[in-house]
Structure formats: C-alpha cells, structure tokens
C-alpha cells in the first residue's frame, strides 16, 4: 500500500478514517489517497462502506480520522464537488424540463421570469458534453434511467467540480454500458481536469479505465494502479470468497498494446475509434480479444 506517501499529487488523502453507526463499524482505520486529476475507483462488496466513504468525503457524515484535501486545506478552502448518485428517486410528475432542472442549480433569476441566455447556453454546452442536447426541452420526469444519469452528470459538471464523485453510475441503467460511460467521463475529465472518484462493482471496467483503485471492505485491503493492486490475494481479502475473475493482468489497456504478432493489429487501430463511440454491444466488429489476448472481459478502453 502506498497510502499517505503522496503529497501535492493527491486530491484527497484519508488518514485513519473510521466510522461507527450503532454497533456496526462501517469504516475501520481507512488510509488511502486519491491522485489528482485521475480516475480513482473504489471497489468492494455490498456493505463494504463505499457509499459511506463518499458521504464522508462530501462532509455529510461524521467520522473519526482525517480526510485531507492537499492544496486546498492550506488555503482554508474546501473543494467544489460534483455528485452523481446511484439512483435518483424523485417525483416524476413535477412539471419541469431538463433545462429547468439544470438551470435551477445555477441561475439566480427565478425560472418563472424566464431563462438567462448565458446560463442556458452553458447548460447546452454541458448537455453536449454528455451527448444529450436533444433532451433539453424534454420533461425531466419522462426520461429513462440512463438519460437521467447523463443529465445528472451534466448537472454535476456544471458545478465545475474539483472532485467528481459517482456512486455506481452504471448500475441498473441503460447507459450504453459501463464502457461508454467511462469513455465519456475520460474525455470530459481530460478536458476539464477534475479528479474522478467512482464507486464500482465492475472490476473489468475498473481495470480497463481506472488509473487508481482502492479496495475497500471496511478496511483498505489494497490500493494502487489496478493491474498492480488487484492481485488475487487482495481481491480475495476484499470480496471474501473470490469466485474467479478473468486474468486482469492480461487485458490490454490500449490497442497499441496489441502484440506485434496480432493478425488484426492494423485493423484494430482503425476500428478502435468506433469501439469508443458505439461500444461492443452496438455492433463493433473488432475481434481484438479473440486474437492474441483471449480474455473474456470484453473491450479494454
């Protein structure tokens, strides 16, 4: 483990964070760090304290130990957060368009007096980033689960966050798959430069996309670059009975990592852009993983 060793390169540092609810110890001496400007995934089984840890970061729950924000703490500032919950339960009958909802978080002038052109243009810009401009005047309550997640992502990005926290954004929703979600987030992150913390159950997605992983089950059992940190021992300790995963170390991070002898190497380079856009379940013909890699986890990045 490398907790506490980084300094200015960290956006968040957990120092002996603990939390007890009733008689249950939810978090126990959690020490870890979140690299600045990178994608950190928090993985662990149900009840591992992942969501509690994010609530602690957001300052919405009392805990022991320290959660530090290097660079901001010294200046007496707190980070700007963007937050996308796992599932939004709300009154779907509220007469409100997607634009109304997004403006309600940033516009001072009351919506009954109209929309500020400046803010509306900003909203459209962020909707464009999550590929949802067509939804601007749709009823918010009539959207599908996946569309709501995209709108919530736009809402979070509108905050121009230092740290974007996503609580299993791909679970149970039609978000064109976790791969597309992560790819979209990567593009936005590279453009905006925020730190991304995502809770996830999907180890294959984490391995393919995350820069850093924290394995949590009340305690931190391991952290670091996924291909290094996600050893069989760490996974077994974190998840208890480990039922066997694909060989995570063999997943290519990029098409350029194709073996020299891969017969479709050149074709991959051509097809890979399509993979990014449409995803494997949308008719991508790339045979990447059947040639030379032989892994069962689907596309890597």
């Amino acid at each position: 483990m490398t907790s506490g060793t980084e300094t200015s390169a960290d956006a968040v540092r957990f120092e002996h964070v603990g939390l007890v609810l009733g008689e249950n110890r939810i978090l126990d001496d959690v020490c870890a760090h979140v690299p600045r400007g990178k994608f950190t995934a928090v993985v662990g089984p149900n009840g591992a304290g992942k969501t509690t840890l994010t609530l602690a970061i957001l300052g919405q729950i009392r805990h022991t130990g320290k959660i530090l924000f290097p660079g901001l703490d010294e200046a007496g500032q707190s980070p700007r957060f963007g937050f996308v919950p796992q599932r939004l339960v709300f009154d779907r009958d509220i007469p409100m368009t997607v634009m109304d909802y997004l403006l309600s978080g940033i516009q001072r002038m009351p919506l009954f007096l109209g929309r500020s052109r400046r803010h509306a243009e900003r909203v459209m810009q962020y909707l464009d980033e999550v590929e949802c401009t067509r939804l601007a005047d749709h009823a918010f309550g009539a959207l599908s689960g996946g569309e709501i997640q995209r709108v919530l992502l736009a809402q979070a990005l509108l905050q121009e966050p230092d740290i974007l926290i996503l609580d299993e954004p791909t679970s149970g929703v039609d978000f064109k798959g976790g791969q597309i979600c992560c790819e979209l987030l990567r593009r936005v992150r590279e453009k905006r430069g925020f730190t991304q913390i995502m809770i996830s159950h999907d180890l294959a997605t984490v391995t393919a996309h995350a820069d850093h992983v924290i394995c949590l089950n009340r305690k931190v059992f391991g952290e670091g670059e996924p291909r290094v940190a996600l050893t069989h021992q760490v996974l077994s300790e974190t998840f208890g009975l480990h039922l066997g995963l694909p060989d995570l170390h063999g997943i290519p991070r990029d098409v350029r990592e194709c073996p020299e002898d891969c017969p479709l190497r050149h074709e991959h380079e051509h097809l890979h852009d399509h993979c990014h856009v449409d995803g494997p379940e949308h008719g991508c013909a790339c045979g990447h993983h059947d040639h030379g890699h032989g892994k069962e986890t689907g596309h890597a990045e």
Partner: protein
Amino acid sequence: MLNELILHISDLITVFFPLDCMEPEFMRRAMLGLLLIAPLAALSGVQVVNSRMSFFSDAIGHSAFAGVAAGLIFSIPVEFSMPALALVIGLLIMYLRRGSHLSTDTVIGIIFSAVVALGLAIVSRNREASRGVNMFLYGDILTIGDDEIALLAVLLVAFLVFQFFAWNRMLHISVNEQIAGVHRIKVSVYQYLFAALLSLVVILCVRAVGVLLVTAILIVPAATARNFARNSRQLFFFSLIFSYVSCAGGLLISAQRWAGVPAGAAIVLLACSLFAVSFAAARIRPK
C-alpha cells in the same frame, strides 16, 4: 389611516367586479383578503406538492385550536397567538424532521396529535373559546379585519421576495436534497425559511376557509396546474390563475342567493371542480 387605505383599495374592487353582491363593504374586504390569499396559497401550494408537505400544512392548520387556547391562557389576542404558535410548530417539525431518524410522517403525526389534543382540552374547559372554535373550523372571510388584511399584505411581500430568491433552489431541493446540498445549495436555510413562511400562510388561510379545508386551498390549485404545465414557468402562472379563479369565483358563488353556502366551501368546491376538469383534459390530451 390603515382603515382609510384599505377602504380605498376595497373600493377599487368594484371596478374589477362590478356586481351587486360586491356593494356591501364586508364583501369588498373579503374579496381583497382573498386576492391577497390566492397568490400565497398558490405558490406555497406548488412547493407543498413538490416537496410532499401536505400533511405538514394540515398539522399547522390544526394548530389553530391550540393557538386560540394559548391566546386565552396567556391573555393575548388570538390574531397574535395563532401565527406565533404556528410558527413555533412549523419550525419544530422541520427541526425534528431534519435532526432525528424518525420519518417525516411520524414526526408530524405526533405533533399534529399533540396540538389538536391540547387545543380541544383547553377549549372544552372554556365556553368563550368553544364559541370561537366554529369560526376557525369553517373559516369566515366575511369578518376579516383591517389588521388581518394588513398582515396578509406584509406576508405577501415577504413571500414574493422569498420566491424570487428561492424558487429555483426549492425546485432543485425538491428533486433531491442530497445533490442540492453537495452542489452548495444551503438546503437547511431554504427549508427553515419555507417552513416558517408556510406556517404563517396556512394559519392566515385558516381565516378564509377554515381548518378543515385549509390544505385544499393550497394544494388543489397547484395540483390542477400540474395537469396543464409543461415547465416550471407554466406551473407558476397556471397555479396563480387557478387559485385566483377559485378564490374570487368561490366568494362570488357563495354570495348568490341560489347557492347559500359558506365562502370557504364554495372556494374549495370550485377549486376541486377545476381540478376534475383539468384531470379529464390531461387524460384526453397527454402532456
């Protein structure tokens, strides 16, 4: 001076409602009171429906009994004791709701029961109070006084200022409190302010339609507006329109010889009729 001002304004009512039934001064005052109540009820109703707080407003309405009782015990005018107690109850409910693990329904249910029981206990021991209870049970807008009209006007100004700054944020909070909080909206400030203003609105609306119907005058115009509105702006204006039509129309209907019903009942019946029509229209022509 206040009396003259209200007299002058109520004279203007006849310009907009040139009807025989508007000739008596008490009718013009009643209409003036309702024209002040209508926007208060409509806009707070929108947020009551969005935030599912109808039980909250019901509890505040029922605190009128305890408010009357408190006025008698401490020998203070009920015009003061009722809003004061409503304010305390409203803020207490919000405090318990935010600060305890009890569900909102349970918190309100307990306080609701306590204030009604307290009111009934005291009122049953005091004949003078029991005579006044009917007025709060059914409402009596026709006897509204100058002080109450002035209080409504002040509350309307305060409420509109609040709506100007809080309409968007309240909408955001009603979708998800947690997201709103993370995105730097001061959720507790908005909720406490709204609870305080709503408590005052409810208790003053009790004057118009009574304890039994006070929740209806808030939520029915807002619910009707929901059937037509496609966005937040339309919701605002439609709820105002339906509230004005219900309040003014209800008073006019109650003044007709053929009707012979109290103003409160007529207002709520008209509001519910408009809701029924809007509901049918929305079913025929989906939004």
